[in-house]
């Protein structure tokens, strides 16, 4: 069975969109998921999108109670139903997410696209990191470690392991590192190995240009 809800991180905490038809089953499935992933939800602020569903005080009250028992704070209920909105307002819940400030709205336009994962440590030999979005590493990627990302890979450190950016076929993906010396570098379906290095390492970006994998120095004039 498909999960009757979707969870998304937003500025104000988590937004959970309930998609199931049957209220009791949907609610049970949600509580079950929260019990399963206690650490993730513990202390979370949650906004609930319930769609066109009409919810009365008893139904919503029970859910608030069940969530608070799990230390999850429900602070907003979003709905197209007037009944539900009124119930929520009566229970002291917000009925809309606060509009983003102008400044944040401007910044958000830069952030569209896939999710990214940030790893703040060195990936050692034998470690394999797979992620459908972008991958950002603050640390080194040692020989024997592997990163496979659907999007871009950024390494604030030395990249010496195997890296595959645009693993789902995105030829526009790039790989950047302060020291780009991977055992093997792949972007989409192109594969390359690192040439022998001469001189000190410098920040570089690898990408596909005219069907060819190239590594370009970040400090080249044309980039500035």
């Amino acid at each position, binding site marked *: 069975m498909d999960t009757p809800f979707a969870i998304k991180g937003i500025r104000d905490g988590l937004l959970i969109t309930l998609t199931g038809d049957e209220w009791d089953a949907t609610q049970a499935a949600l509580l079950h998921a929260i019990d399963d992933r206690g650490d993730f939800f513990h202390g979370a602020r949650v906004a609930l999108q319930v769609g066109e569903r009409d919810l009365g005080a008893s139904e919503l009250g029970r859910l608030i109670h069940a969530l608070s028992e799990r230390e999850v704070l429900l602070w907003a209920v979003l709905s197209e139903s007037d009944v539900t909105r009124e119930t929520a307002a009566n229970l002291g819940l917000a009925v809309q997410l606060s509009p983003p400030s102008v400044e944040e709205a401007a910044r958000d336009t830069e952030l569209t696209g896939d999710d990214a994962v940030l790893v703040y440590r060195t990936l*050692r*030999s*034998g470690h394999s990191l797979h992620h459908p979005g972008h991958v950002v590493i603050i640390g080194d990627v040692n*020989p024997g470690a592997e990163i496979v990302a659907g999007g871009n890979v950024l390494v604030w450190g030395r990249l010496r392991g195997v890296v595959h950016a645009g693993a789902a076929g995105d030829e526009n993906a790039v790989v950047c590192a302060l020291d780009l010396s991977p055992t093997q570098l792949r972007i989409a379906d192109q594969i390359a190995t690192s040439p022998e290095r001469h001189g000190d390492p410098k920040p570089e970006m690898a990408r596909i240009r005219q069907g060819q994998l190239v590594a370009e120095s970040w400090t080249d004039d044309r980039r500035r």
Partner: protein
Amino acid sequence: MTAKIATITSGKGGVGKTTATANIGVALAALGLKVVCIDGDIGLRNLDVVMGLENRIVYDLVDVIEGRVRLRQALIKDKRQDDLYLIAAAQTRDKTAVSPQDMIRLTDDLRPDFDWVLIDSPAGIERGFRNAVAPADLILIVTNPEVSAVRDADRIIGLIEAEEKGPGKLLINRFKPEMVRRGDMLATEDILDVLAIELIGVVPEDETVLVASNRGSPAALDDRSKAGKAFRNIARRLNGEDVPFEILEKRDGVFGRISRLVRPGEG
């Protein structure tokens, strides 16, 4: 006394874990400390041979863990040093005869009576390795200046970090300064560059080690052995002394960079 438990491991086989365990054990005992070495390589024991105690084994680790004998009965006293003991591995069993909890219980029983418990880990990253690192307060990772050994050491460091036992200290064994100078071998700084953990010692390649192992008389007992000296220095560092890194310091030119990298507490 409350013993510190140090596990000597490497990932890769043949880098000198057993030799290092025996020599550090001997050297710690020579400092007047009470030491027990445990052979964690059940089924492929050889610490007893390197320590020259093969013919004294009556009971082994598995006998203690399975409750057939008391711990005292399995402690084999060294023939040269009063304060050095060995617990031998069983030869006829395999790693599954022991669990990580067994090792923790065993070492806890040893703690009150010793200053150091050294555990010689088997190669690999499976059950035997898990058994050996489970009780450790400190993990010494032995590597050789070659790419494959460093790769495995890196994997081990990752694993012990995951078990929150890390990052451990690095022992570079079989180091050949001449080969490094010719550019044919990884230099200490190349290794530290990748592994980024604290160095506990660099042991030069030395024929006396092999001869000593075959004779069952660890090189640390030999005043003329260069490797023996390096192991004695490692023991002193484990004991809290600040001992300079001798081999490296003799090399002109390299010294400046090395001394920066091996500053205590770094990494």
